[in-house]
């Protein structure tokens, strides 16, 4: 439709609707002398979550959400990259990627055709602690789609030709990581914080030698060890009730054979005991990618709410100190943030920004300043803003079926208490300045920190050295990632 006809349509509508409302009787003008005071907060009423168990023991948690005729189903397998064999980093990811490359007697193309034809979205992936298989589908197609999801989870083909195809894709992806300063920085930071000896120090989806080594037998063994009802949970959110859903789930997942319980114990990483500075040289880079990090707390840490309030103030919101300082006050960057990645065994803290090359040292100085200042008492106004932002914005985390299912999956995976969501708001609102300060002192220490800079060494090294943060470990991209994998032979040789 053209702009001209749109204007015409508007004019016709205006003629049709000539009713005029008079609002002058009650209008007294706006008071702009201060921001309006909110009305009393409305309670966040979450859908009533019910728990069920299928015949084979597979637990199910479901939350009815009736606004839109869609359903999100997530199968969580309690094994992710942390369960990779020591000599096979990336195996959990490859297993997850291979699940939908042929399953239940269909090849990869047939399976994709069936899923796409239903208007469904079926995806698989591994995190550190879990593998998830997610299905998002119009409710009218739920039954058929669950059958495909069950095939993918329980009956993957793990064909060798498909493995070769995905191996080349993964190795090419590893090659392409060299182009991306942010990926280089993420790998350098993980290496600096956790070391090569800890699984967390290697990429979640593995490195080239490991990916090159996978056999279909590795995939089958991982699947047999971990993919069974004792080690899995289902969560469902959407436009369906238990009476309709449970028979469908029984049919698709109720006959999944039981297996052994599986443990995925992993040693806790050691906290840094000094400051490390790593400079990865990228000649000619337009910006320096800055990442500062250390070992963080696990998901079941008792003070997670306090940590989140502290982080909101430090780097978790637009008005946080890091973004306000680096972006708004100094114009060094398009943005700066900080955050915690909570895992079953410890986690990771990082503060991050991409800054203009010429201000690299200035920006680093400001980062260290903020990571020092967060350990002192914040103003009452800052603390109140941070806790309100978290508490009163919490409803937005539960709006869609995908969000709701993701929260339920997280709760099940980490065994979080039943009242985790319902108590979040009052707990966040109760956090005061003393707790923020104590929390920061417990987990942030600018003296025991890894600092990664990916940028043009010739332009930034002098300024960074002058900050006196400690000796600088200068690396090339090859030093960090190893030589680029050679991939130009035709497939299959």
């Amino acid at each position: 439709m053209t702009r001209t006809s749109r204007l015409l349509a508007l004019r016709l509508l205006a003629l049709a609707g000539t009713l005029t409302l008079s609002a002058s009787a009650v209008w007294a003008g706006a008071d702009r002398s201060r921001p309006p005071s909110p009305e009393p907060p409305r309670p966040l009423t979450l859908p009533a979550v019910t728990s069920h168990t299928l015949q084979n023991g597979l637990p199910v948690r479901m939350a009815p959400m009736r606004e839109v005729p869609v359903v999100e189903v997530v199968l969580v397998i309690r094994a992710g990259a942390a369960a990779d064999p020591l000599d096979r980093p990336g195996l959990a990811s490859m297993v997850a990627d291979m699940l939908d490359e042929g399953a239940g007697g269909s090849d990869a193309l047939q399976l994709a055709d069936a899923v796409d034809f239903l208007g469904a979205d079926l995806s698989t992936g591994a995190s550190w602690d879990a593998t998830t298989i997610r299905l998002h589908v119009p409710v009218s197609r739920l039954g058929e789609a669950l059958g495909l999801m069950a095939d993918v989870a329980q009956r993957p083909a793990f064909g060798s030709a498909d493995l070769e195809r995905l191996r080349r894709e993964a190795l090419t992806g590893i090659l392409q990581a060299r182009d991306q300063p942010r990926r280089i920085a993420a790998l350098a930071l993980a290496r600096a914080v956790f070391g090569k000896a800890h699984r967390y120090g290697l990429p979640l989806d593995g490195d080239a030698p490991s990916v090159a080594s996978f056999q279909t037998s590795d995939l089958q063994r991982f699947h047999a060890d971990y993919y069974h009802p004792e080690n899995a949970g289902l969560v469902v959110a959407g436009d369906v009730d238990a009476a309709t859903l449970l028979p469908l789930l029984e049919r698709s997942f109720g006959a999944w054979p039981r297996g052994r319980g599986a443990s995925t114990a992993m040693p806790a990483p050691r906290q840094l005991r000094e400051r490390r500075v790593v400079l990865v040289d990228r000649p000619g880079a337009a910006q320096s990618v800055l990442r500062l990090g250390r070992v963080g707390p696990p998901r079941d840490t008792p003070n997670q709410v306090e940590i989140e309030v502290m982080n909101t103030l430090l780097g978790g919101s637009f008005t946080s100190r890091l973004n306000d300082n680096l972006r708004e006050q100094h114009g060094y960057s398009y943005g700066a943030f900080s955050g915690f990645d909570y895992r079953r065994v410890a986690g990771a803290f990082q503060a991050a920004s991409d800054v203009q090359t010429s201000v690299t040292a200035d920006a680093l100085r400001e980062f260290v300043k903020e990571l020092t200042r967060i350990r002192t008492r914040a103003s009452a106004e800052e603390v109140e803003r941070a806790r309100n932002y978290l508490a009163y914005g919490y409803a937005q985390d539960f709006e869609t079926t995908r969000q709701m299912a993701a929260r339920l999956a997280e709760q099940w995976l980490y065994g979080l208490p039943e009242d985790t969501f319902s108590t979040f708001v009052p707990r966040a609102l109760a956090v005061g300045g003393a707790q923020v300060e104590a929390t920061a002192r417990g987990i942030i220490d600018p003296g025991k920190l890894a600092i990664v800079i990916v940028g043009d060494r010739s332009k930034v090294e002098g300024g960074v050295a002058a900050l006196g943060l400690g000796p600088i470990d200068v690396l090339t991209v090859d030093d960090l990632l190893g030589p680029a994998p050679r991939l130009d032979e035709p497939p299959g040789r």
Partner: protein
Amino acid sequence: MGLLSTVSLLLLAQATVPAASPRLEVPYKIFRLENGLTVIVHEDRSAPIVSVNTWYHVGSGREKLGRTGFAHLFEHLMFEGSRNVPEGAFDRWLEAVGGNNNGSTNTDRTNYWEDAPANALEVPLFLESDRMAYLLDNLTPETVDGQRDVVKNERRQSYENRPYGMAEIELSKAMFPPDHPYSWPTIGSMEDLSAASQEDVAEFFKKWYAPGNASVVIAGDVDAARVRELAVTWFAEVPARAAVEPIIPRPVALAEEKRLVMEDKVQLPRLYLQWPTPPYLAPADAALDALAGVLASGKNSRLYKKLVYDLQVAQDVSATQESAALASVFSIVVTARAGHTLEEIRGHVDAEIAALQREAPSSRELERFLNQHEASFYDRLERVGGFGGKADLLNNYFFHTGNPDYFEEDLARYRSLAPSDVRAVALRFLRPERVVLSVVPEGKRELAVPEVKR
């Protein structure tokens, strides 16, 4: 300027379709203030949140030569305070009640949203109306300088320091003549960003940020009658300003194939093919979306299956009808695997295009795309706020059609397609006259499509 005290009712939309119908519907009320501002209200009581979503009908497509990137720089300045909102307070006051916000600029429009707990609705109304009325009162050269630096860093982060990041800029330049506003990127050039002055800001604000050139959607856990009162309270005092000239579509045509080569710090070469196509919502627009789906959406799509699955000569492939108000571009992008040239890739892509020009896709191929596309409409209805939530979409449809609840009509464009329509647009638009851009690793021009046609 006298304060305006009435609102005129433009249209009252009510649910008139039986509940059993599968018709997609987002009920709304719409009214226009005397200063010309259109207000659209949608009630969704499922969560205690509200989104205030404002579109100004100006994007980089309205910029002057020498001031490219200005519409987007201006978007940044909108967050830096206004007469009654000190610098920094826009975000602080909103966060203090649990809200967040963002804005974005494209070639055609600039949008802003504030998502907040519904009990704090008046905070975004205050903030949004204050900057619509009084932005210039609090603006200093230092503010402009500060955001100029931020935007330059946005350009470095999103284009210059990103692999293949400069390709988009080259492509626009090749597709559109220099006086066509789509020939420059929304992010602008560093030179023009440096040249932008406080006077430019004042001029742009007065010309384009008129209430008559804006629409505000208020969606969520609200009462429509109460919202109407509040809209008057906060927005009626915004002074009316001169009407802006309408956007006139300006499609382009290429006289011949243009072949370009760029070197970049990348490991693998990437091929871009682009053709000029009709604007958003023009008759062929939906069929071109379907063509893109048949070519590159899912493992069974023509290009993915051939290049990534069967031959394994490519790492990824995409096809998109990039729809916009003045003119659209149909784009195919393929990253080659190591050991393969872009000329080889081009040959495969052209063979697949020729096949679709000879014979229409199967009805299953089209239906697969349509089912996926229809499901994506449901997904958009799950969220009230943010980019692409219901509030943003009501504004999008209002801007482009005058009808905020255009969801069903939009979907009907796709439901009515036949396989022959897909073949027809492939024939009509994927012509030999096109832009062929090869991005190759530094020093490896031999991997490019040759610049002289063989």
